[in-house]
């Protein structure tokens, strides 16, 4: 049976995988693994060049390259130092400026569910992917009648540039001065670092915290499937007592 190139590659991959268990750990085995990785990186490079996904040729970075700087930026890691606020408590109100220096208050969204996203810093690893993930899910958040709000200690100017480069359209609020005071209010400020934990609060239409999650590690992005389960639960009618 003649296989097309994709089928042939799949067959070779399966053969490669089946051989792994038969090879003892050795430098030779590691070399084969490295060669496999090199092959797929080379294939990826060819795909990218074929799609024109390269620099703009004038020596300057493209916007995509700027957006992806976080991939080679210094790591941001560390265990959580704060526990956040308890579920069932009223969410503290606040007013902070957005990227256009317009004041935004939590009470502005009373009557809607709110997903409050505390993240450490614009441009940093994990944060970049986290907010892009949420941006790609705006339709799902809309379905749950949920308003996304991002908060970090960055300035309004950083928020503006970062949102433009990454195509983020939901509000990013600047907890810049006094630095981190809203993060303090929500018990997620890492004082020694000068930025917040990575934390989520789901606040219901009456302003009550219904879900709180502080990432156990700074670089851990909350599971969006869990977040959607929480929003789904909010969408269900409350059980009637006595039944």
């Amino acid at each position: 049976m003649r296989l097309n190139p994709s089928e042939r590659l799949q067959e070779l991959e399966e053969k490669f995988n089946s051989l792994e268990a038969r090879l003892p750990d050795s430098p030779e085995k590691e070399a084969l693994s490295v060669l496999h990785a090199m092959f797929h990186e080379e294939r990826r490079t060819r795909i990218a060049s074929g799609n024109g996904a390269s620099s703009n040729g004038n020596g300057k970075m493209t916007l995509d390259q700027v957006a992806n700087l976080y991939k080679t930026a210094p790591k941001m890691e560390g265990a959580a130092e704060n526990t956040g606020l308890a579920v069932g408590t009223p969410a503290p109100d606040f007013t902070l400026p957005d990227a256009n220096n317009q004041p935004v208050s939590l009470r502005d969204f009373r009557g809607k569910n709110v997903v409050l996203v505390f993240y450490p810093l614009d441009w940093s690893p994990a944060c970049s992917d986290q907010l892009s993930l949420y941006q790609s899910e705006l339709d799902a958040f809309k379905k749950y009648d949920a308003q996304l709000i991002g908060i970090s200690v960055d300035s309004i100017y950083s928020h503006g540039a970062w949102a433009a480069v990454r195509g983020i359209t939901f509000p990013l609020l600047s907890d810049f001065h006094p630095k981190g005071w809203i993060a303090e209010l929500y018990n997620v400020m890492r004082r020694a670092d000068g930025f917040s934990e990575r934390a989520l609060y789901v606040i219901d239409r009456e302003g009550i915290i219904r879900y709180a999650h502080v990432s156990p590690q700074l670089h851990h992005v909350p599971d969006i499937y869990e977040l959607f389960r929480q929003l789904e639960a909010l969408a269900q009618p409350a059980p009637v007592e006595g039944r």
Partner: protein
Amino acid sequence: MWNMLPQTPTRYRTTLQTPVVVFGTAWCAASQMVRRYLDRLGIPYVYRDMEYDRDAARRVQWWTGGYFSHPIVQVGGDILVEPTLDELQWTLANNGLY
């Protein structure tokens, strides 16, 4: 090396109904991005959590020269290490899935 291989031709090809496998972790935003992208497209896939699935983690190490890179998306014979969505889309199309 070659004489280590079976002397008679062997078909390793399987009849996977879902030739898309995502190797990732629950806390990795890029893994979540890839999974949700496939969800939205309605493309079935198998998800293997590298933190709980030792075989999956071992497989990834075998593919990448020893790294625990994530996400990795296997589409047929293509092994995409931390792909962009553009790369994933191209590969899905190349395998007749997009």
